[in-house]
């Protein structure tokens, strides 16, 4: 027993280091995201409040530009409403909750977004986030007033898309370090593709509505072995420079999933 104490006394520094280091590495590499999301949702209310306070200040810098952008969007939406009224199309598939991004990163390998809407505003896990010209992410954890989303710039996120001209479906993944570009690797060789073609969302996942513009093709080449294209897509929206977004509440999602 005495020897044990002597041993501990002599080597406690290395043992303490090994213990804490392996704990952190375990938390980082663990595939069970349960512990992680537990810790994060517990602290989110506080970190969210700090980010919110800070973004309230920095928001003033972009006020004029944001205003212009929102006016433009408003005009577009008015014209859509009048079109729908003419056609008596009242079957709504999606509800939109306006929100503001209060923290965003684009340079990491796994990027996350914090927005200022939470459980109280009716946000639920798994809802999508979009702007007028692009998909931003999917909500991963919520607290009362804030929620966190997995950005589209995350090694784990993938969005189902379609190539508008040929109507081919595929999935968009973010793989490299450039926050303006993403890749599509599952459109077959026989499809007719050219530079500058538009990529839009298809409604398959029932998270995002159909026909949201996502990006344009900037380069492609035919993969030799698998008969699939390697396509590079440039995003339409600058992920580093967005503040106002919409959370999408898909009203028929549950029904579709139950099929």
């Amino acid at each position, binding site marked *: 027993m005495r020897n044990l104490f002597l041993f501990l006394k002599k080597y406690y520094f290395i043992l303490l280091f090994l213990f804490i280091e392996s704990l*952190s590495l375990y938390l980082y590499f663990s595939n069970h995201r349960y512990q992680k999301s537990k810790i994060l949702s517990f602290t989110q209310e506080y*970190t969210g409040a700090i980010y919110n306070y800070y973004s309230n200040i920095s928001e003033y810098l972009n006020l004029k530009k944001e205003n212009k952008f929102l006016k433009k969007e408003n005009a577009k939406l008015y014209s859509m409403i009048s079109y729908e009224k003419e056609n008596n199309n009242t079957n709504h598939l999606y509800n939109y909750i306006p929100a503001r991004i209060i923290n965003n990163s684009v340079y990491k390998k796994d990027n996350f977004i914090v927005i200022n809407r939470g459980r109280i505003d009716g946000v639920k896990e798994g809802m999508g986030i979009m702007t007028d010209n692009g998909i931003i992410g999917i909500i991963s954890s919520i607290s009362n007033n804030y929620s966190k989303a997995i950005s589209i710039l995350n090694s784990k996120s993938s969005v189902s898309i379609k190539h508008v001209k040929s109507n081919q479906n595929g999935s968009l993944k973010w793989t490299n*370090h450039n926050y303006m570009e993403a890749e599509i690797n599952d459109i077959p060789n026989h499809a007719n593709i050219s530079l500058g073609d538009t990529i839009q969302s298809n409604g398959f996942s029932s998270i995002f509505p159909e026909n949201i513009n996502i990006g344009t093709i900037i380069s492609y080449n035919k993969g030799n072995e698998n008969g699939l294209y390697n396509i590079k897509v440039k995003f339409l929206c600058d992920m580093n420079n967005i503040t106002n977004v919409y959370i999408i509440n898909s009203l028929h999602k549950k029904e579709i999933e139950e099929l």
Partner: protein
Amino acid sequence: MKNLTKYLWLAPLFVLIQILLLNNVQFINYINPLVYLLLIITLPQDTVKWFIILYAFLIGILLDIFEGNIGLNSSSLVFIAFISTYVHKIMIPKNSIDIKDKLTLQTLGLKTFSVYAISIIFIHHLFLFSLENFSNSSILFLLLKVFLSTITTFIIILIFQLFAYKVKEK
């Protein structure tokens, strides 16, 4: 011990500086200055060893909570805290300073401080960025990022030190 309490309340301050300012001003993909390392670098040589480890873990976990990636910063900071006790022995000449002194630009002099600080910053950045880009990244990108970030972090830390120096002189 009085010194250590000061370090304790400096930790949240540096974390806030990091997440609110420095994480937003990275202008190129390659440069990501991490100034909170200053706290680990300047800890006096006679600091209780368990304090160094737990202190590094505290800073790391605070950063992780804000950045939403539990374990990344804490593991690299705990690692550098462990390594730093050995780097002290190699880099800092014996009897050149009092072991109770903080390891600053003022006490060590520019030459020793630069060598010591750069080696700690470099090891930390190498560990952190290779952990972050574990699977999908080219080695060239990784090394370039580590190299450029090390320089930027060191310059910002020097500026912080010069400010502290001036305030003390007054």
